[in-house]
Structures are given as structure tokens and as C-alpha cells.
């Protein structure tokens, strides 16, 4: 038995040594590695709230993807840049990035639908275009494919109803959406905020307040200053409608503090 074990050991040594000198795995081409690094760095910058750095990284990623003739990666870079530009109120730049995606069938179909959704958002922000038409384009894709971002479409539909002074329809969509516990927090808070605005328009002030406070709690968790500004502006309107001057004053103070740290279009007139 001992001999067999010794023999096995002797045979094992050359096998192990041969294994150590085996061919290394194939190397990914340098440009591919560069693209992956740019994309990861861009997402990391986004996560840390460094919007301008993230945009620069996405630009590098887009350029590298162009060199690789990788249209899906180019699409991801363009969409990400457009969304970031919208965050920093660079609406013209966002529109320009999205226009490139519109007629080009080289981009994946899902990315073209996502671009339509972002164009609808831009349109709702007053940048021109037909929000309803763009949303219909995005929805057409989600009807025939599994769409993880369906909630965003529903939220924008609710916003469209609000803009058309149809608070009942907006409330139905938003409340239905907010009832889904598994929803992404960003979309859930948006649904709650839209519901609060619809309830305000319907004169159901206590419910509006409660819905908005729930949205505020999520937005605090998400640490999104612009969304907090948006929430506080609505809270001021609700408090004024309720005649709750203490709440309105508190909301103004909070909004003022946010605006001092992050001025922008949302703070105009606040």
C-alpha cells in the first residue's frame, strides 16, 4: 500500500509540474479591455455622483466602442450620457445624443426604445417633441418583449395625464405602480410623488401629504438632491393648500438649503 502511494506521488509530481507550465488562457484584445474599463469606471463614477467624470468616461467608452464597431456598447454609452446630461440639465446635449439613436437600426431595438423613453422625458421637461408619440414607441417594444423598465413607461404615462389635467387617470396609474413592493425604489418614489400631485389636484390633501412623505422617505434613502428639491416644492404646495404654515415654512427652509448647495432650474423662483 505504501509503495503504491509513493509511486502515485512520484507520478503526480511531473503531472503537477506540467500543469504549471500549461498554456495561459487567451488574452482579451487591448481595445476590448479598454472598453470594459471605461464602462466600469463610468458606472462607478455615476454611482458616486461624479456626473461630469461619468460623462467623460462614457465619451471615452463610446469612442472605443466605435473603434470596435460595437453598436450595442455605443448605444449604452450614448443612453448613459443622455441620462446624465439630463441630470445636470444639459437638455440640448441629451437631445443631440438621443437623436443619433433614433433612425439607426444598427443599435439594438431595446436601446432605440429606451432612447424613445428618454426623449419622452425630455419632451415632458419642455424640450420639444411629442412625448405621447415617443412613449408609444417605447411601449410598443415592451409589449412584444420582456421589459425590465416597464415601470418607467407607466410613470411617464401618469406624468403625461397630469400634464393634460387628468388627475384621475394619473392617480390610477401611479397608485397601481406604487403598490408593487418589488419595484425599483427610484420608480416607486416617482409613482408616489405623481400620486401625491394627482391627489392634490383632486383636493384629497391628507392623502397627498401622506403619499409625498412616503416618496420623500425613499428619496432620502436614495440620496438624490434634485428629487428632494422636487418633493419639497410639491410639499410647499400641499402645505399651503392645507393652510399648514408651519409645514410650508419648514419645507421652504429645507428647499432653500438644498438650493444653496445645488442651484439649478428646479430652484428658480423657490
Amino acid at each position, binding site marked *: 500500500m505504501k509503495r503504491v502511494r509513493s509511486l502515485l506521488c512520484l507520478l503526480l509530481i*511531473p503531472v503537477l509540474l506540467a500543469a504549471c507550465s500549461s498554456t495561459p488562457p487567451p488574452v482579451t484584445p487591448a481595445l476590448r479591455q479598454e472598453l470594459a474599463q471605461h464602462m466600469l469606471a463610468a458606472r462607478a463614477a455615476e454611482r458616486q455622483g461624479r456626473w461630469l467624470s461619468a460623462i467623460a468616461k462614457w465619451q471615452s467608452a463610446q469612442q472605443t466602442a466605435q473603434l470596435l464597431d460595437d453598436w450595442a456598447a455605443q448605444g*449604452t454609452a450614448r443612453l*448613459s450620457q443622455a441620462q446624465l446630461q439630463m441630470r445636470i440639465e444639459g437638455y440640448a446635449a441629451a437631445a443631440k445624443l438621443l437623436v443619433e439613436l433614433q433612425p439607426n437600426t444598427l443599435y439594438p431595438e431595446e436601446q432605440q426604445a429606451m432612447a424613445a423613453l428618454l426623449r419622452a422625458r425630455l419632451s415632458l*421637461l419642455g424640450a420639444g417633441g411629442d412625448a405621447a408619440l415617443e412613449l408609444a414607441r417605447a411601449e410598443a417594444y415592451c409589449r412584444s418583449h420582456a421589459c425590465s423598465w416597464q415601470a418607467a413607461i407607466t410613470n411617464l404615462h401618469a406624468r403625461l395625464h397630469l400634464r393634460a389635467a387628468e388627475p384621475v387617470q394619473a392617480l390610477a396609474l401611479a397608485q397601481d405602480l406604487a403598490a408593487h413592493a418589488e419595484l425599483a425604489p*427610484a420608480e416607486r418614489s416617482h409613482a408616489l410623488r405623481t400620486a401625491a400631485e394627482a391627489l392634490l389636484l383632486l383636493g384629497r390633501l391628507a392623502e397627498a401629504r401622506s403619499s409625498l412623505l412616503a416618496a420623500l422617505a425613499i428619496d432620502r434613502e436614495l440620496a438624490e438632491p434634485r428629487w428632494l428639491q422636487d418633493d419639497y416644492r410639491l410639499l410647499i404646495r400641499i402645505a399651503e393648500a392645507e393652510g399648514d404654515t408651519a409645514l410650508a415654512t419648514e419645507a421652504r427652509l429645507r428647499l432653500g438649503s438644498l438650493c444653496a448647495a445645488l442651484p439649478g432650474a428646479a430652484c428658480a423662483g423657490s
Partner: protein
Amino acid sequence: MAVSILRDQDPRFRLLGWRVGLTALLLLGILLVLAGFLGERSGLFRDKTRIQLLAENGTGLAPGLQVRLSGFRIGVVDDVQLNNEARVDVTLLIETRYMKWVKDDALAILQQDGLVGDHFIEIAGGSPAAKQLQEDGTLTFVPAMGLSDIAQDLRNRTLPLLDEMRNTMQYINDPQGDVRKTVANVQNMTAELRQTREQLSQLLLNLSNLSDGELRQTLQHTDALLQRTDQIAAELQQQLPGMLADTASGLASFKQTAADASATMALLRQTGEQAAPQIPGMVRNADELLYDAGATLNGLQQSWPLKSLLPPEPVVSFVPESRP
């Protein structure tokens, strides 16, 4: 003593010599097979061609350094010797099967893997039409450029540019210089014109209250004033082109400086790109250095235990948001 009580007739000692010999032979065989296997993999038994380099100094050169072609290892540095002229003879052993790509006009460039990596010799720049280098042929050697050399090179290129910019700024800011004088002159003349115009207005206002004699006298005064105005206007007309030319010359100088800066940057970039085969990878441009540093950092981040301390890498897929 256990050994002393064992007898030679013990059955375990039978054929002991043969068994020991067989085991030793088996081990030797395995070692030889292993050595052969590893030698084959590292190209030890492949046919080699000897070529020579002549270096001014032996910094970074040592036997055993890799010789690469297009990033592939094709040979090693066999020997480094100081010759009678106090220069360094370097002998390379190149695998003969790769010699078809080593042309006699190729360059042997001493390079380094990153900032802290090993040196190696890169063979590059051979033209396809040139002949293949023969056994014991000599390649042109390009030494590694140190950081101090790069700094000196950059300094030599940028200092004249900075001097030119400083001179231009001094020329503009000089109180006795053309630009400042021109501006001061224009200001003075404008003030004089304004004063003259005010005097004329005053005179015209008082005209109705004057007697004939006074009127004549006043008109003479007015005539003198008008002549003075004409004179100033003529002076302005005469000097303005010169002033404008001075300003234009200042602007042209600025433009020239900017063009020089642009040209220098273009030259630097062009030097990096065109002379790429002649400059070690480490010094082609600062981007590559940063890239290497980034790659090293990435490598570190990927290794245990740092990997476990870092946050997970973000997901790259895009998710659209609905909220403005």
C-alpha cells in the same frame, strides 16, 4: 540498536541494490523528461541565430533579458561584454524560425514593462523590402530613455515657448510699450475732442447774446477751435492706422504664440507617433505611463486580499429612469 539485530537474510533486503538502482533510474528518467519538456517549451532546443548589438553603455542590459518582436518572445540576450573602445557588445540569440522578420534595417530598442517592470529588447521598424539579417549581423541599438531624459527633452521644447509668451505679456504690459501708449493716446485724444465739443456747444449757446465785435472775435476763436479739432481729427486719422497696426501686431504675436504652442504640442505628439519604434514604450507618452499605472492598480485590485476589501464592480447594463 535496531539495525544491528537485522540479518542480511531478512527477505526485505532481497534485491535491495536493484530496487534502489531502479528507483534512482526512474527518478532520473522523470527528471530528464521534465527537463526536456520544459526546455522544449522554452525553446531551448530550437535552432538559434546569433546577432550583435553595439551599445554606448550597458545600463539595463544583462544576459537573460527577453528579446521580443511584436510583443512575442523570440530570443534572449546571451552575452553582454565591455569592448576595447569602452562600448558594450551585446549578443542576442534569436530563434531561427523568427529571423525572417528580423530585417537588417530593424532597430533593437531597449524597453521596460511599465515603470517597475523588467527590461526587454524589442525588435522593430524593419522594412518589408529589406534583407533578412544574417548570422552575426549587427542591429542598430536604441537605448532606453530615462525619466530625466524625457524631462530634459520636454524642458527644451517648452522653455522657448514660455519665453515667447512671457515676452509677449511684457510687451503688452510695458507702460512705455506700443500697446499701452496707444491706448493712453487714444484716451487723451478722445478727452480733448470731448472738451473741444463742449467748448463749441457753450460758444454756440452764447452766440445770441453777443454784440457784432464780440461775435467776430468769438467766431475767430471758434475758427481756431475748429482748426484745433481738425488738427486732432487729422492726427487721429494719421495715428489710428499705426495704433491699429500695433494692436494687430500684438494680436498677431499672441496668435503666433498660440500657433507655436499648438505646433509644439503637435510636434510632441507627432514625435511620439512617428518615432514610436525608436522610443521605448515607457516614454511614448504620459498616457501610456498612466495606463500602465492604471493596469497595475487594476491588477492589484483584482488580487487577494485587496479584492475582498473593495466594493463589488458595478453592473454595466443601462436602466432608463423616468424621473426628471
